[in-house]
């Protein structure tokens, strides 16, 4: 299993982005079932939503349907993990993290039974279904549980990379899947993905945007607009929220006049908070602008509509950063 490696190329990155992160998980699961023993994927009546229909038919002995019972899902997963199975569980992000939060704490955190949790359709992509199905709280909750890594892949290729890396990782991992089908591509060729090490995807020496998940592509587009405006902007893919790449954040702090965190999550407790926890330990650090969901459940609607409502489109991210940057000199 140590030689497990996923190679990204232009072709598969396109396929994955077209089908979206959930179906990517299902496709990768098919690969994994052929490559490793003792794989078990457990779902709570979401095999179709998780892109696992083919997997379920092809590998019935490596699939377990638990029914709509997420607490039991985690307990069974931990029991299997304790017998040396490589276990994934999956359901929609709110149910994968919050419905069974204490089971995750006790079984995966406290007891260190290793399970990879895949939170489907997190963030705002399920907006038309309302906030029961949107998930803007998971990062904050999951990262407060010891012995748990938390990752939000930037695109579908990175989702594939994350699933492979999580299997080899020592602790349990929460994988937060965001975005829909036909999602933007960040990575078109192979690269080294390491859990806990962030990735600078664009250089700039005035402002730094730190982001992750599907919203990273909006941040990247915003950075080009900022460059044009004369604010040279670096973009960092902080796919791993925990363990946080503290050394890199410190380096970034030394070489930025403004740090902006952009997340499809409540600004309380998520990526912005994690970055701020690190920055606040420094003797001096640049100011931080938090862009995300301002601790509220607004009226819901389609994904693009909600991104506008929460000022998470590239244009609105660009404007907020531009305004903040202009204020810097005026203090």
């Amino acid at each position, binding site marked *: 299993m140590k030689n497990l490696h996923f190679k990204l190329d232009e072709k598969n990155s396109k396929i994955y982005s077209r089908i979206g992160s959930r179906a990517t998980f299902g496709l990768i699961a098919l690969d994994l079932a052929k490559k490793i023993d003792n794989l078990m994927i457990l779902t709570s009546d979401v095999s179709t939503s998780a892109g696992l229909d083919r997997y379920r038919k092809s590998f019935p*002995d490596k699939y*377990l349907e*638990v*029914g709509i*019972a997420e*607490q*039991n899902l*985690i*307990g*069974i*997963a*931990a*029991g*299997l*993990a*304790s*017998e040396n*199975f490589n276990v994934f569980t999956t359901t929609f992000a709110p149910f994968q993290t919050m419905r069974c939060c*204490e*089971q995750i704490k*006790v*079984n995966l955190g*406290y*007891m*260190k039974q290793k399970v990879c949790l895949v939170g489907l359709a997190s963030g705002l992509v399920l907006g038309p279904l309302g906030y029961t199905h949107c998930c803007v709280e998971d990062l904050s909750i999951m990262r407060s549980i010891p012995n748990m890594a938390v990752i939000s892949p930037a695109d579908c290729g990175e989702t594939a990379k994350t699933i492979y890396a999580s299997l080899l990782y020592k602790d349990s991992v929460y994988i937060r899947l965001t975005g829909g089908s036909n999602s933007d591509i960040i990575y078109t060729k192979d690269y080294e993905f390491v859990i806990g090490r962030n990735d600078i995807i664009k250089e700039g020496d005035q402002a730094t945007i730190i982001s992750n998940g599907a919203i990273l592509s909006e941040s990247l587009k915003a950075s080009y607009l900022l460059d044009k405006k004369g604010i040279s902007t670096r973009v960092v893919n902080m796919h791993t929220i925990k363990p946080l790449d503290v050394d890199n954040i410190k380096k970034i702090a030394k070489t930025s006049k403004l740090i902006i965190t952009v997340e499809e999550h409540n600004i309380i407790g998520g990526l912005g908070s994690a970055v701020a926890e690190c920055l606040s330990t420094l003797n001096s650090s640049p100011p931080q602008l938090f862009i995300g969901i301002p601790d509220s459940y607004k009226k819901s609607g389609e994904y693009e509509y909600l991104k506008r409502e929460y000022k998470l489109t590239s244009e609105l991210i660009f404007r907020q950063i531009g305004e903040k940057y202009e204020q810097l000199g005026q203090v």
Partner: protein
Amino acid sequence: MLSEVKVSTIINISKEIRKSILDMALSAGSSSSHFGGSLSNVEIIATIFSIMKKYKMNDKNYYKRDRFILSKGHGCLAYYAALAHFNFFSKKELKSFEKNDSFLLGHPVINRKLGIEFSNGSLGMGLSLGIGVAFAGKIKKNDYEVYVLMGDGECNEGSVWEALMAAPHYNLNNLTAIIDRNNYQQTGSGEEIMSLGNLKQKTISFGWETKELNGHDVPSLLNCLTKKNQSKKPRMIIANTIKGKGFSFSENNNSWHHAIMTKSQYDLALKELDK
């Protein structure tokens, strides 16, 4: 046929476990202990430990061991005493119960070297673990048995019913759940706090192979637990018990749910134990 020797051995082990429970309760001092709910499951644990396949972690047959999960983690006094009796660690270690840095806390903490299979204490989680472990046994064709000891109080938890639904659905006949039906929970009787109704009928209707028995009667326990499960379904044993069983001052006295033991109570209990 059950051998009388075996029954008497288990009765003696139960007595030893009660003695160890008294010792731990006394040494815990002001940090107090879950005395009542540990005493109700003494015979159940003594019987299971007497019949289960036990291997230490360094034994090549370790993977074949039967798995015991104490879902009602607060009943750990009896569990620790049984583990010490069967030499998973020395009896001296029992004195460290609830002391700083001890591995014997007020709820079990996973420690496979010492025979502790899982961490428990947050209620209603053990049966799900048992299902996972039993499932693994089926897939790997490893014929160990899985025993999950639950409390009746923890059956208030919805997660218990998720698990009760699932185990028969998967035909896990290598799984035995025992509900220690002592009819009390932390702040009162089950009837007052949240009635469970007829657990036997409920579990049967969920698809379990259910037996009801006296949870302090070793011959009944032994008879039931040593019978091979011929059915496809998991086994459920509703064990009617007495909370605080064994001592005049604690039987059916719910103030002993979690309490401090004085030296004079300890001395009285020792006398009653030797009667």
